[in-house]
């Protein structure tokens, strides 16, 4: 491993993001640069590492430099530039930037202390960095079955990239969280392209002050990445519906976000499935092929890796009677939860869904419906106890897509 300064850990993925942004400048509907950079800085390096691991190749540091060099080269060669379709008052952009900067600073100053970071996401990053791959021996080791070896690997992989470059896993996680938080705010801002600047700023603030998922107790978890990818995917879906067909920039972002969701978390995979179904319903032939192919390649590559290496999937109950019992337990538990924060989250969801009831957001509602059904099925078929599962995760699972939904709920009504 080569020791580097901790801020430099992000240079490799950011060079890819920069290259992607330079490429996007050829599209008038390119959107916000921070969202584009965040998306591709996360998805391309992570996807590259997953692809190498799937092919049985080790993550040599020089391969990461080659990837970053390719990103820089694309950026340098992409000279074509057209004027952007939408412009925004700079004052409000600065206000949004200050809000996001404040939150990012708070995140940067807090140590990463989440339980699942230490014993799952960060642990996997350390294991994978040491092994130079998604270590199949460690993942298939039966005593590690409680550490969710079947969870998609993108989040630990991007952290492992920083660890292999010489950073501590805590420092790398912090750097990524700061980047993803800023990208989340930018993504929410980007979803409000037609809105008045003050509303765009409010949307960015809804991203920057996303409830639950930014709590220290959940620091280092994959939920922030999923929230950002959800903002890009659902925003792109709404734009696709509004303009009847996805333009090139929207389709690129939608595909990238779908790939990222599939490879970051099981909940992300469910949301990506919902997005794909919505595209199948409303998209053009080109949109359908692009999104379905991305989804299938991303899901099948990781599932094939698990199958080939004998990594056990999480056991699930297939007994309908057990599902009913679990549903009853879940209802009783939720009733006893009181108003804060879960009840308040539900109120926010209700208000957001009222605001979302518009023609151009129908695909978004479909994707969210699939997400809700998938999450409910996962809870009801849990063999570890539904109430324990709910108590440890329902708040953040419910909060993850919320910034994306709010940004779309705030969007201007252009059709009734």
């Amino acid at each position, binding site marked *: 491993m080569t020791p580097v300064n901790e801020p430099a850990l992000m240079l490799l993925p950011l060079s890819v993001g920069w290259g992607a942004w330079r490429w996007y400048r050829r599209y008038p509907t390119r959107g916000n640069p921070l969202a584009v950079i965040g998306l591709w800085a996360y998805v391309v390096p992570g996807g590259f590492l997953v692809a190498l691991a799937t092919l049985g190749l080790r993550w040599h540091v020089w391969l990461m430099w080659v990837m970053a060099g390719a990103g820089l080269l694309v950026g340098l060669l992409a000279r074509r530039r057209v004027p952007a379709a939408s412009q925004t008052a700079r004052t409000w952009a600065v206000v949004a930037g200050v809000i996001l900067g404040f*939150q990012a600073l*708070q*995140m940067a100053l*807090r140590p990463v*202390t989440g339980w699942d970071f*230490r*014993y799952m996401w*960060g*642990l996997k990053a*350390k*294991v994978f960095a*040491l092994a130079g791959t998604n270590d199949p*021996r*460690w993942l298939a*080791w*039966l*005593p*590690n079955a*409680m*550490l969710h070896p079947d969870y998609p690997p993108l989040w630990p992989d991007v952290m492992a990239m920083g660890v292999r470059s010489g950073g501590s896993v805590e420092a790398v996680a912090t750097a990524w969280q700061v980047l993803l938080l800023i990208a989340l705010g930018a993504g929410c801002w980007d979803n409000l392209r037609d809105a*008045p600047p*003050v*509303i765009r700023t*409010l*949307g960015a*603030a*809804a991203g*920057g*002050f*996303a*409830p*639950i998922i*930014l*709590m*220290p*107790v959940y*620091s280092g978890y994959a939920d922030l990445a999923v929230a950002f990818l959800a903002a890009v995917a659902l925003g792109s879906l709404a734009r696709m519906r509004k303009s009847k067909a996805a333009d090139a920039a929207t389709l690129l972002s939608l595909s990238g976000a779908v790939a990222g969701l599939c490879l970051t978390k099981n909940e992300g995979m469910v949301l990506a499935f919902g997005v794909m179904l919505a595209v199948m319903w409303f998209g053009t032939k080109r949109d359908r092929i692009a999104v379905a192919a991305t989804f299938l390649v991303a899901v099948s590559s990781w599932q094939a890796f698990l199958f080939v290496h004998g990594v056990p999937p999480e056991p699930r109950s297939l007994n309908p009677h057990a599902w009913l019992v679990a549903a009853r337990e879940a209802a009783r538990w939720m009733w006893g939860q009181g108003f804060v*924060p879960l009840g*308040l*989250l539900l*109120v*926010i*969801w209700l*208000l*957001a869904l*009222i*605001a*979302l*009831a*518009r023609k151009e957001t129908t695909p978004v509602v479909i994707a969210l419906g699939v997400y809700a059904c998938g999450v409910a099925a996962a809870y009801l078929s849990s063999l570890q106890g539904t109430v324990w599962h709910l108590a440890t995760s329902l708040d953040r699972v419910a909060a993850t897509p*919320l*910034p994306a939904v*709010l940004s779309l*709920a*705030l*969007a*201007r*009504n*252009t059709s*009734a």
Partner: protein
Amino acid sequence: MAEAVPFGSSPWRRFAGKLRLVSSPKSTTDRSGRVSGANGPGGRSRNAYSGLREIAGLAAAVLSIGLGIGLGPATKEPAVDYPFREALTPLTDAPIPPGTALVLVPPPETPLADAKFWLYEACWRRPDVLWSLAQEWPLAERPTAGVAVRPTAVPPGWHEAWRRGDLRYARHSGAK
């Protein structure tokens, strides 16, 4: 003929319109002078619902930001002392070869359900080896080394290779 009212007729919507928070409904007049669109015939109820949606969206965003401020990165965490974190800290210095399959023996007073936390911490301290608990045996790969947290007699056929306080690392004599 009804005159088009900017931002509709609901007081909430008029207030939001003054703040420029909601979109201005477009009403058009055709050649015969008929007004159509948001405030035209048939458009009033639809427009009221549109106003409700916009207010609901604003309220949701404001509530969410409020909750986000209350439950954000600055939230105080309850300080919890986990005994396994301190007890297993010296593991990082143990001369365990990478890739070794090990058994971890937590303190005898540890409840069976909590033993897995000791295993997790051992994984965090030494992610380069494969950890197991005795209750998880038999395993496809038989552990050839062990770490015990309390002083215990080394079983026959094993020898102690390293010790730090109460923490002991022993290897099976047949293991390399």
